[in-house]
């Protein structure tokens, strides 16, 4: 497990991270969510040792992260960068070697990754000859070539078309399934909602929420339900323990009044009156959680 423990950092007088703590668990995709300038990139740079922490520590498997452990990390920086004039495959192979692979291993991994990312036919082109989207896929390959123990990706999906998102996602999921902790940041809530298992929400340098996505939803969602019946659902207005949010013919959305467990009563009553088409809790979107916690 990668552990970020009370990490603080300031630039000049401005404190950008204040005792930031969270875990990135093995085999899980952890979404790192926050507005622009909330401290996501700074946190990631500190994990990678590009910036020094002014307090706190980052540990991997219980040991402080050092230059040598970090060499087994895969990193995709926010500001993309590779050598523009180097050939795609050559560049990825070289980075693999720099991360400690033998030439043969690096070549094999590069070939496999470029195939997975559907870049095999561009392997011999100079990076600058590729479209921005394709350059970004190369960047993914560069972060993954050495089969990293930990993956830290800063906005890996920004700038990708939906098809490319799926391709990159498949590659990342494969790594997570192999037991690698994957931390990726995003300010696009919909993307994170679809992709992450765990969630860390940061705002102005302070962690506002962290944990499993579904758990967070359950915790931060109000007890809201949607009921669709065969006939008019107007009777629900008078049902005890219920506060109507929206009522439209046979469809009703309602909250439970605090402390009551009236949902079963409502279902029983509905079944007694007419047929029930659907009855389900309304799960809050990340958008709602996000707005609630920050």
């Amino acid at each position, binding site marked *: 497990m990668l552990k970020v423990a009370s990490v603080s950092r300031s630039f000049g007088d401005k404190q950008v991270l204040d005792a930031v703590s969270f875990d990135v668990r093995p085999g899980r995709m952890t979404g790192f969510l926050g507005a622009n300038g909330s401290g996501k990139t700074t946190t990631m740079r500190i994990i990678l040792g*590009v910036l020094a922490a002014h307090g706190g520590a980052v540990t991997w498997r219980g040991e402080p992260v050092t230059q040598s452990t970090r060499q087994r990390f895969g*990193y995709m920086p926010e500001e993309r960068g590779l050598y523009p004039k180097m050939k795609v495959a050559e560049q990825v192979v070289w980075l693999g*070697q*720099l991360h*400690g692979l033998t030439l043969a291993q690096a070549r094999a991994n590069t070939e496999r990754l470029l195939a997975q990312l559907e870049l095999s036919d561009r392997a011999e082109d100079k990076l600058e000859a590729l479209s921005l989207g394709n350059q970004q896929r190369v960047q993914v390959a560069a972060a993954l070539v050495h089969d990293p123990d930990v993956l830290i990706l800063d906005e890996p999906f920004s700038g990708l078309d939906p098809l490319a998102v799926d391709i990159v996602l498949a590659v990342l999921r494969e790594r997570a399934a192999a037991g690698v902790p994957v931390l990726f940041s995003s300010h696009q809530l919909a993307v994170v909602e679809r992709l992450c298992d765990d969630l860390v929400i940061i705002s102005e340098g302070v962690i506002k929420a962290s944990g499993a996505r579904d758990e967070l939803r359950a915790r931060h969602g109000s007890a809201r339900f949607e009921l669709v019946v065969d006939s008019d659902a107007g009777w629900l207005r008078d049902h005890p323990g219920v506060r109507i949010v929206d009522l439209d013919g046979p469809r009703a959305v309602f909250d439970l009044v605090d402390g009551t467990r009236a949902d079963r009563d409502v279902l029983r009553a509905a079944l007694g009156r007419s047929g029930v088409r659907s009855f389900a809790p309304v799960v809050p979107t990340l958008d709602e959680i996000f707005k609630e916690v920050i």
Partner: protein
Amino acid sequence: MTSFATATRLIAEREVKSFLRMKGTWIGLGVILVVLFATAILPKVLDTPDKVATVGPDAARLLAGSGMEVRAVGTVEAAEKLVRDDEVRAAVIPDGRSASGVRVVALDDTPTDVVAALATAPPVDLLDRSEVDKDQQQLVIQVFAVLFLIFAMGGAAIAQSTVTEKQTRIVEILVSTVPIRALLAGKIIGHALLTLGQVAVIAVAAPIALSIGGHGELLSVVAPALGWFVPFMCLGFVLLASVWAVAGSLVSRQEDLGSSMGLVMMLVLGPYFAVAFFADNATAMTVLSYVPFSSAVAMPVRLFAGEAAIWEPLVALGVLAATVMLIVLLASRLYSGSLMQTGGKVKLAKAWAHAD
């Protein structure tokens, strides 16, 4: 797990490869070679002997062995006509009143080479003869100073490649992967090899050019001093290379590189001009031969002229090596402190303070 040495080697390899792939590298080397061959060979090709018309046996005798093309004519008028028609550079005609018995006729300026050929110089004895003559010494200074310039300017590529890495932001991946000092060491070694390679090419081409041009004797003049030049040059390169790297790390964009390269250019050009200007001043040369940067040129020249005792180059090398160590330490701190800072130009004090 990549060791420091492996990381350094990989960085150096990449620098060499990408440098060799640039067109500019080969164009630059090509231009140097063309200039080298041109300066060695062209004078021989273009240098045709002066044509001189002579009247009378005295003139012909005086010019014998001068290497000039002599056309003997019968009368002064005929000789003057040849001069007017630009057929000959000058005419040498008899003149009873002149001490040498001849007079020179030319069109609009004094033909000094013809006059010199006619003059008889008295023998000269030098009481304090130096081991090498001044012309040869001047030549050795020029050769070493130019080689030093080529080496030193080669270091500018380090600044270039550092800025490229900052500008493209790959530096973030590099820094998170290998120690910053390995990055610096790899760059210096890579570019040292590249520059050595170019000098080696020139070292192979120069004798060929010189012997084609008929200047074989120059080689035997320069060769003895080269032995001392090499160790000085290698250390001098590391010294300048680390300074170049800092110059590159201080800025974030290619366009800003000029502003931080000024000081380094002075360090490169300073020794070149200082040694050229003070070549005749023994005291100044002695000082220059100990000062790092200029010692790389000045000490081999003094050794060549036989002016330095055998322990002197060793002391100068020691001073240079100590300076290299100091500068490399300072440079690697400044380099690490400024490498991750982007935006405008990083102030040296800020770079110093930011080193982690």
